[in-house]
């Protein structure tokens, strides 16, 4: 009896303490902190996953020489092991029903990047560990990064100068010298094409348009233009000859590589971007190459349907588009908020407008894309073409998706955010400060511009930060109003007016979609998807941090008096 009493007392005590624990608020603290921890873990996990998968791609990994046997055929290959995984016996048997040996519970398989897409396709293949006969790491196997057809692997066996084999003591050194030479020539050609030829083409196009303009004005006096055109064409011919000459020089050399099975593969040196022997490199050499590759990724144009090369045009387009969007959305949103808060008579109608503005933020972005295409591109862009560029017709100038329309569409998408946060900032400014300004003889407009707006600037920037965060990640509307898979030119170049708002541009978000899901070579593209995604996230972080730093400074400067 006494024991059961003690037990029940204990129980009641326990129950009480549980209730007390609940009432103390501790569980609430645990719950909230767990939510924060989960969010932080999710963000770090996301960035970590992108970083691991994306950044590993640029590391010069070792190349193995592998001999394997499949269905009685022996094959020798060079390749990088790009993935290892274990699959279950059942999965293996379903894929290989005719396999006659005893299968262990799990089967190890490797994804080998074998390169040599032309000479020895395919360039990615799965191998089962039990098929492998020998696997070694030869020190002198060369990885060749090419302008076309992806990487190649092989052993350097000779160099040909205009088709004749040459003798060299230091074959590798000679090879590098000739790669450097072609790189120099390639740069020269690139400069001629990007600089002079583009410039001349641009001027020829302007002349063509000027002619057309005069035709439309019934003026058939072209002699001055024709003289100019003549001169330009002469210049063009000279430069074209230079390019031909350089291209001929470029094609002078080739290098011979022996594949793993002993076949010889000739690769023109003009097609080689760089070559390295990863198995013989020290960690520091690899690190140097790693950062060089990383830099090339950031600064090069894409190649091979975006699955190779860099992402510079997409990076450039993304940043430029976001900056333009901010420059458009901020004044617009601030002016609208000023009217709603400072001038409009507060009442049900203004409240209704406010609710409508808030709800605009919830409209799916693709709807804005459709609107942007219909209104901005076709209606406004088409009218601009009719009014200002009739000579270019039927080719549209502004009446086609382009940078300005993409920026405007995103500005429209994000304007509610700016309005809402600017309004919040305006309401927080104490009446006393406004009255202080008015009492000194300032008009309402002077008060707004000299006192109210500077004090509201941190809130305006908060709105901009939110707008940038939303706009930089949008892809769907951009596909309709200006983003393309591959833009021939950047929106900024050396030709007047330097910033070409009507041009189409590339964007990291669309690039991810395109490389990841529209690419013919999924295995080659996958690491680039991760790397590009990581870069997009980093860009948004950098843009936001810049704006946040600026806001904090302004906040310190315009903090409201607390006396």
């Amino acid at each position, binding site marked *: 009896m006494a024991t059961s009493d003690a037990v029940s007392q204990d129980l009641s005590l326990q129950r009480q303490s549980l209730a007390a624990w609940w009432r103390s608020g501790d569980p609430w603290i645990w719950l909230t902190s767990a939510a924060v921890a989960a969010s932080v873990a999710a963000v770090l996990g996301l960035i970590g996953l992108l970083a691991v998968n994306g950044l590993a791609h640029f590391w010069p990994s070792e190349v193995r020489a592998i001999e394997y046997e499949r269905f009685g055929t022996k094959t020798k290959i060079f390749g990088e092991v790009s993935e290892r995984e274990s699959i279950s016996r059942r999965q293996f048997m379903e894929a290989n029903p005719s396999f006659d040996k005893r299968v262990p519970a799990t089967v190890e398989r490797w994804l080998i990047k074998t390169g040599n897409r032309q000479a020895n396709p395919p360039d990615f293949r799965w191998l089962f560990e039990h098929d492998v006969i020998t696997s070694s790491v030869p020190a002198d196997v060369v990885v060749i990064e090419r302008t076309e057809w992806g990487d190649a692997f092989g052993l350097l066996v000779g160099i040909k100068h205009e088709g004749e084999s040459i003798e060299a003591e230091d074959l590798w050194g000679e090879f590098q010298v000739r790669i450097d030479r072609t790189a120099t020539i390639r740069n020269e050609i690139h400069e001629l094409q990007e600089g002079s030829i583009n410039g001349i083409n641009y001027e020829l196009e302007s002349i063509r348009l000027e002619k057309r303009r005069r035709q439309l004005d019934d003026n058939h006096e072209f002699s001055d233009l024709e003289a100019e055109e003549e001169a330009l064409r002469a210049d063009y011919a000279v430069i074209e000859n230079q390019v031909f000459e350089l291209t001929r020089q470029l094609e002078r050399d080739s290098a011979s590589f022996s594949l793993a099975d002993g076949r010889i593969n000739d690769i023109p040196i003009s097609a080689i971007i760089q070559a390295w022997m990863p198995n013989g490199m020290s960690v520091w050499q690899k690190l140097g190459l790693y950062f060089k590759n990383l830099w090339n990724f950031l600064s090069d144009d894409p190649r091979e349907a975006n699955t190779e090369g860099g992402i510079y045009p997409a990076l450039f387009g993304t940043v430029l588009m976001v900056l333009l969007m901010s420059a458009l959305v901020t004044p617009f949103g601030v002016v609208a908020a000023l009217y709603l808060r400072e001038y409009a008579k507060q009442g049900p109608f203004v409240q209704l407008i406010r609710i409508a503005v808030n709800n605009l933020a919830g409209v799916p972005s693709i709807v804005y894309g459709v609107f942007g295409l219909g209104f901005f591109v076709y209606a406004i862009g088409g009218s601009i073409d009719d009014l200002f560029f009739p000579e270019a017709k039927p080719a549209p100038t502004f009446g086609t998706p382009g940078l300005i329309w993409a920026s405007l569409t995103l500005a429209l998408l994000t304007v509610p955010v700016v309005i809402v946060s600017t309004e919040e900032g305006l309401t927080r400014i104490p009446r*006393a*400060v406004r009255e*202080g300004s008015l*009492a*000194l003889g300032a008009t309402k407009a002077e008060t707004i511009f000299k006192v109210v707006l500077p004090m509201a600037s941190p809130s305006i920037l908060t709105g901009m930060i939110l707008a940038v965060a939303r706009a930089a990640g949008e892809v769907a509307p951009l596909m309709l109003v200006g983003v393309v898979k591959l833009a021939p030119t950047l929106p900024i170049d050396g030709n007047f007016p330097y910033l070409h708002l009507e041009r189409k541009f590339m964007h990291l978000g669309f690039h991810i979609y395109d490389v990841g899901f529209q690419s013919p070579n999924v295995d080659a593209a996958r690491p680039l998807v991760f790397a590009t995604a990581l870069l997009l996230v980093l860009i948004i972080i950098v843009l936001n941090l810049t704006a946040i730093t600026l806001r904090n400074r302004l906040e310190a400067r315009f903090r409201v*008096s607390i006396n």
Partner: protein
Amino acid sequence: MSEERADGHDASTEIPEIPTPASSIEEAPSPNEWKDEDICLTVSDLCLHYGDNEALTDISMRVVRRRVTALIGPSGCGKSTLLRCFNRMNDLIDDVRITGEIELNGMEIHSTSVDIAQLRRRVGMVFQRPNPFPKSIYENVAYGLRLQGGLPKSEIDDRVEWALKNAALWGEVSDRLNESALDMSGGQQQRLVIARAIAVQPDVLLLDEPASALDPISTLKIEELIHQLKQDYTILIVTHNMQQAARVSDYTGFLYLGKLVEYDTTNIIFTNPSEKRTEDYITGRYG
């Protein structure tokens, strides 16, 4: 009965000592000795409605130039509202209706030909809580001058220095004019706001409980400042603090429920008020 008890039990309800107005060399003349040319502001039959509420009823008074006129009264009696009529700050509030007249040096301020910005330049105002702009000390004082436009930099420099000196602040801030005004103490901020108001050289200075948010030492400084400023400006001050009204003002008006109950020299109001309500208020029986 209850009044007697309050009297007997609470020392603070004793009639305060009347300090002699130290700075006024000549005694303030009583209203019936006022000459027309001494009058700066004339209020006639002023009524003010917030929507359906009458906040001021039939106020008529005259304000003497280069004197300090205090407005006292319990909370909600309309003294701040009356003060804000003089620079038309009430215009900022929706639903305000004003009838009657206020003349500034013979000019009706509600007339349609009056530019409100110009009026507010001539009738400066200092608020209950210091409200410096989030700018530098210099920019705060220069704010009103810059609004006038066209003043050369040297002129603005001179007038900022002059205003800060007149507001008894120059010695404390002359070496940190470019620091934020928000880093100053409350008392300094209030003197800065006064400097800001006098920098544009107004005729009238309206002070709306200028010391109510300040500590005693800052309050003392503000009061000394008022003594000095009245040599150049017509000052109207609203205060809750009767000792302060007695110390700084030449004339005192007592408002109660939107009416001007009594208006006379401070001496008379505090020693020999003719109205029972005035006496009750200044002896602390209510309010």
